[in-house]
């Protein structure tokens, strides 16, 4: 018999392990790449592969340099590598994607301590850096189903602006709502397919990887405030639909608000987090400089997570001490 070890109770564990949680998020991102291939050709998939290899390799190299135990089954950097190209147009230069990857892994993740210890969302930090540095190239999109994009060359012509730019200038977009549901309009590679994103969210809810509290509170706040404060003369219902469907609002609300490390844990804190993010998104859309600024909103909200957790724990500690005092007084009386 081999040598037996000392272990601690309980001696059985559930069959799910950490790879299950990470693989669920990866499975929910793959349909967006399939839709991007359908609209824009093979360049979309090539961008995804380059980004994933860069992120995963850099993460392993930096863990080795920090003298930590290398874990080849840690897939969180692969998820970051899959999310970053989906924020950008399909005609983007390869160098911009690699620059965003390096900033995301090096500055926003490894400097703070690696997996599980980061304060800010690394994908959001990488996109924010790329937006500020290359502002004129990130917001020009190719037309879907008509694009004929070359796979490896970086010189592309014939780019247009998205409906979110039209809203910024105070006009009413001319795209049909059925086109917007299926993704047949120019926009970021992954953020245009509304129906596919909603079904991936339903998959994450059924698998219990994501909880509905943060995303649902966020979407309800955005819909109500976007309808009240419309940027053009459109009416409540139409304005709220255009605000929800244009830009990276829905994509960020599903994938970035459900990243487990950078979001508060308790259900009450998640609802407050969603409401705060929704209010800030609509505010930035009115007074912000760029046409899509969800990544800046989420970086601001990530810095408040520690305080929200602390205040919620104070509330629960008070409830526990009140229950104990009530029990003690009941025992003294009887």
């Amino acid at each position, binding site marked *: 018999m081999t040598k037996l070890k000392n272990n601690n109770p309980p001696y*059985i564990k559930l069959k799910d392990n950490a790879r299950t949680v990470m693989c669920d998020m990866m499975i929910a991102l793959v349909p967006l790449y399939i839709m991007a291939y359908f609209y824009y050709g093979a360049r979309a998939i090539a961008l995804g592969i380059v980004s994933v290899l860069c992120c995963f390799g850099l993460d392993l190299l930096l863990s080795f340099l920090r003298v930590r135990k290398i874990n080849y089954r840690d897939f969180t950097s692969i998820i970051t590598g899959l999310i970053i190209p989906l924020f950008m147009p399909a005609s983007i230069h390869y160098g911009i994607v690699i620059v965003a990857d390096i900033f995301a892994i090096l500055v926003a993740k490894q400097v703070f301590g690696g997996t599980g210890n980061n304060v800010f969302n690394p994908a959001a930090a990488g996109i924010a850096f790329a937006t500020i540095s290359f502002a004129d190239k990130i917001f020009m999109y190719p037309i879907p189903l008509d694009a004929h994009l070359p796979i490896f060359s970086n010189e592309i012509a014939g780019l247009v602006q998205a409906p979110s730019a039209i809203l910024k200038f105070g006009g009413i977009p001319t795209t049909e709502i059925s086109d917007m549901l299926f993704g047949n309009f120019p926009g970021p590679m992954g953020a245009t397919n509304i129906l596919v994103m909603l079904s991936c969210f339903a998959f994450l809810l059924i698998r219990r990887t994501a909880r509905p509290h943060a995303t649902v509170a966020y979407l309800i706040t955005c819909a109500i405030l976007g309808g009240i404060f419309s940027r053009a003369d459109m009416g409540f219902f139409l304005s709220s639909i255009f605000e929800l469907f244009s830009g990276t609002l829905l994509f960020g609300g599903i994938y970035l608000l459900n990243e487990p490390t950078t979001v508060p*844990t308790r259900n009450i804190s998640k609802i407050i987090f969603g409401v705060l993010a929704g209010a800030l998104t609509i505010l930035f859309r009115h007074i912000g400089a760029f046409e899509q600024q969800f990544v800046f909103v989420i970086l601001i909200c990530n810095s408040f997570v520690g305080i929200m957790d602390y205040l919620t724990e104070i509330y629960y500690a008070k409830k526990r001490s009140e229950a104990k005092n009530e029990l003690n007084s009941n025992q003294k009386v009887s």
Partner: protein
Amino acid sequence: MKLFDTVKGVYLDQQKEPALSRDIVKFISHSENIETISCPKVQDDKYTLNELIDIAKEAEIVDDHDGKMLYRKLRTAKKRKILYIIGDAVDDEPYISSQLNPLLKMQEEVCGGLKYIKQAFDNAETYFTVYKHIFDIETQIPKEIDGIEVRKVGGRYPVEGVNANIQTKDSLIIGVGALIFLYRAITKGEKQKTTFITVGGNCIGNPCNLEVSVGMPIMTVIERCGLAQNPNRIVIGGAMAGINIIDPEKTLVTKYTGSVLCFKDNEKDRNFECINCGRCERQCPADLNPMLIYKSIKIGKDKNAIFLGAFDCIGCGVCSYICPSKLDVSYEIQSFKQKTMPQGGTDEDDEA
């Protein structure tokens, strides 16, 4: 605030087959001297409570429901007015079926023992209790056995399963094994020299329930059932709160053992850190946040851990069971509690 509250606790993965549907096997070592007890002959086969207490004391019967001697339980029950007598066959821990299996396979002895106790307590009401949420069971549990009703109790671990089996003032709960040994003591005059245990786990080739004589080494019991692969750990007493043994050749089976389980797990799955997924906080029955308490203990901030409620932990183990990174959350909190909690009778106790 009860707006979004859900029921806490988790349904454990009960892998009781194939041990549950097999017959009980006897595995007894023969000894030279056969001891018997003297049993008074009574008319109409009815024994009074004092006679039953004497028989149970001579036969040294141990109750497998809570580990107490049977004669002491009957003696304290003399002072109360008993309305219900419950035969306990609730096996709500995974792999274990050492109470349910004898109930289904040795029905005559169980019902005989229960009827003797019923007549001693002025014909109180009797029934058996059985756990409801065994999803992979192959035999059907009957609705009544020999005229006695079989009731199903259910609940998630640990909240409702524990509450269903608490002894109230007017009820008496006795395990099924003790009933069998009481019947044998009255009819054949035998002392209790054996016990019922389950042998299971993912390393055993032939999982089954055995009737083993007390004093047999655990290695012999494991070899009787056959090993399919070499185990990493051997556990007795239950998978959630049992004892880990290191030397199976020198540890012996006692009347309090209950089960022997052998496991093997993949070691490469133990390299992960906490990814803040929040599953432990969702299922905690005491409304704590085990994730933050674990991190405070690891860093060394004791006051933070006490503020977050480390002394209110009930030690159920659901957070460790459900953690995808396979961390020992519950064990760390319990060992912190033992080191830091002020002991009763000292000066610190007056301050706390």
